[in-house]
């Protein structure tokens, strides 16, 4: 299965997208990325092409546009979509494409002393560049203050750094906030401190070798990233797993969703001083990790999936282990809810803090629990049913005003819904194989490798060349714990992808963050960041 891509002239692009947005209702810009054609065996005359992925506001239709660039520049669409702002900055940073009319076209992921554009094919992967000092970010702050007609001295403002090394910055996010007393009047965010070159690494490894890298995108729900990537490649190969494999994937991805939400909620509650909740929510997570380490051999970064299946089937006695884990999670969540549901501190501190309207949530490119908290009923498990999700009995959890309270409570309820799905999957789990039987995709068993020449050759070819994916381009999306996790993969027919772009939900959530915290206090901003559940691994990649 290859996505349907429409090719446009560079001059038509802005008008076409504007028409799509205003006339046809494509109010949701999913991602912008570029491809460098330099290393293709039959390169086209244009070195760079840009890819725009749009989605209809009813979420049933996706448009993918491709533009071949004559020169390394194109008109910016940041005036149409809020989410285009950072998406274009990233393309500029990684590929060196100029977006004309963009208000702040500067580097996003790489540091300010970086020279060159790393995702260009002529940039050597190992060519690191030392950074000696951090930037002061005032070049972004000054225009913001000017826009709001504020003056540092006259209005007696104080500028402070929140992060990047701060316990409440959840890893590596840096926020520069201008304060009037305790109130934030303007803010700018800097990311890229955990940029680990995922996309460049993908271009240098074969498909199965990328699985461990996907683990470390959203490391709170590693298995789900495995599944999302493997599913996208399987769609390109046009293969489907046997039912048992699919059911195991459903169980594991829902368990990962629960773990992800538990980490988000426990850390968010810890930030507001509710330490008891941290113990109650974190301990069942440890029990879930005991189950996962028994199954996969690792707690956090499991690397359990393979293209076309998974490493092995469930172990004997898994069912009672998993049911036990679910009981403990249920207990932890119930106890935690008892402590906060009618707790005045909890309610007062979260209600009406940083609300996001449905319309602006879409313009920001929000997905997942954060979008649903704003009252938009969008969940890929419902709108694009895959993996038998339409046969499970569960509800979509939707909030109302999209404030910090909604964002947290949606996650609490989603834990319960995911538990429902797992319980149904346990009772419905069919027998049979977990992997596809195609020998050009799945590794032979060890007894075949050591016992016969055919098995050994199969193993050798798969390890050295990788799984050969047919030539083409495909955008595959998966409802991950944080929202729509998409992979845009370009294959040149070999075992190594020509290009992989991750559409990471956290990237778009953090892009909106500086605007969300304006006019709220610093203590509120910390909770807002916690409720957005920014995971640096997938944000910075």
């Amino acid at each position, binding site marked *: 299965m290859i996505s349907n891509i429409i090719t446009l002239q560079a001059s038509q692009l802005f008008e076409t997208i504007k028409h799509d947005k205003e006339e046809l209702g494509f109010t949701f810009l999913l991602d912008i990325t570029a491809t460098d054609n330099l290393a293709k065996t039959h390169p086209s005359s244009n070195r760079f092409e840009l890819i725009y992925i749009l989605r209809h506001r009813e979420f049933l239709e996706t448009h993918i546009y491709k533009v071949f660039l004559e020169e390394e520049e194109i008109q910016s669409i940041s005036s149409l979509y809020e989410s285009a702002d950072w998406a274009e900055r990233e393309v500029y940073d990684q590929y060196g494409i100029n977006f004309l009319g963009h208000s702040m076209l500067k580097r996003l992921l*790489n540091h300010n002393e970086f020279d060159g554009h790393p995702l260009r094919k002529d940039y050597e992967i190992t060519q690191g560049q030392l950074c000696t000092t951090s930037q002061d970010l005032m070049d972004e702050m000054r225009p913001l203050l000017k826009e709001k007609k504020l003056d540092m001295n006259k209005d007696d403002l104080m500028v402070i750094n929140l992060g990047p090394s701060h316990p409440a910055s959840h890893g590596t996010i840096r926020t520069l906030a201008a304060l009037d007393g305790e109130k934030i009047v303007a803010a700018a965010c800097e990311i890229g401190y955990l940029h680990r070159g995922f996309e460049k*690494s993908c271009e240098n490894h074969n498909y199965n070798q990328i699985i461990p890298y996907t683990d470390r995108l959203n490391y709170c729900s590693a298995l789900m990233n495995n599944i999302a990537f493997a599913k996208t490649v399987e769609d390109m190969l046009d293969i489907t797993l046997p039912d048992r494999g699919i059911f195991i994937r459903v169980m594991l991805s829902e368990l990962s969703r629960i773990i992800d939400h538990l980490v988000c909620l426990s850390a968010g509650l810890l930030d507001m001083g509710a330490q008891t909740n941290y113990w109650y929510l974190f301990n069942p997570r440890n029990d879930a990790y005991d189950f996962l380490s028994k199954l996969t051999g690792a707690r956090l970064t499991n690397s359990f999936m393979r293209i076309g299946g998974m490493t092995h089937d469930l172990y004997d006695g898994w069912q009672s282990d998993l049911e036990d884990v679910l009981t403990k999670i249920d207990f932890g969540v119930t106890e935690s809810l008892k402590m906060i549901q009618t707790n005045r501190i909890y309610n007062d501190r979260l209600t009406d803090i940083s609300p996001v309207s449905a319309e602006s949530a879409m313009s920001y490119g929000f997905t997942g629990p954060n979008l649903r908290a704003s009252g938009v009923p969008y969940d890929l498990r419902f709108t694009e049913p895959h993996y038998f999700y339409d046969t499970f009995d569960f509800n979509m959890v939707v909030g109302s005003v999209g404030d910090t309270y909604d964002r947290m409570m949606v996650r609490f309820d989603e834990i319960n819904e995911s538990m429902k799905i797992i319980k149904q999957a346990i009772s419905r789990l069919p027998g049979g194989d977990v992997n596809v039987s195609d020998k050009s995709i799945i590794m032979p068993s060890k007894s075949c490798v050591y016992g016969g020449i055919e098995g050994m050759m199969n193993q050798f070819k798969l390890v050295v060349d990788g799984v050969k994916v047919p030539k083409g381009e495909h955008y595959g999306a998966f409802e991950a714990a944080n929202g729509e996790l998409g992979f845009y993969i370009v294959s040149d027919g070999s075992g190594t992808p020509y290009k992989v772009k991750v559409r990471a939900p956290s990237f778009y959530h953090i892009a909106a963050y500086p605007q969300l915290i304006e006019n709220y206090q610093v203590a509120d901003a910390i909770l807002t960041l916690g409720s957005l559940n920014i995971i640096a691994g997938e944000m910075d990649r």
Partner: protein
Amino acid sequence: MDVSNTHLLDEAVVTTTIDAVVDWGREASLWPFVFGTACCAIEFMSTAASRYDISRFGAEVLRFSPRHADLLIVAGTVSYKQAPILKQIYDQMPEPKWVIAVGACASTGGFYDNYTTLQGIDEIIPVDIYVAGCPPRPEAILDSVMDIQKQLKHEEKFAVRNTDFKGKLDDI
């Protein structure tokens, strides 16, 4: 003071060396600064939570100001962009200070052998203990804290450590 009662002090006073007292105090009250950036930081959260409970080893007073801390736990990938910040935090910590590199990325760059990742934090700051794993299990992080406790007993007590270390950002 009634001289006839001095024999009672035998039970209340212990004579020892100053080094032994300093060791005893430092060993049981390491104050870590967690420079958590990525996956390893999530495992560090588990280490601090009740199941693994780092407070059993006297190291639960997590300080988020480097000026209060004497143990720097670098948990996660450090990119070139992050390196000057790591260096600044290390420089702000008072002596004596120890550094643990948690996990493959902090130790060597791990499998991120690419344009953006620092190939081990020892290019920037001196490291005392390297912990293997990607990420290491909480037990391994606890083990590294115990290693530091053992190590500090054999060191000179009031000296500045690692004076001859020269990192890549030191010459600039």
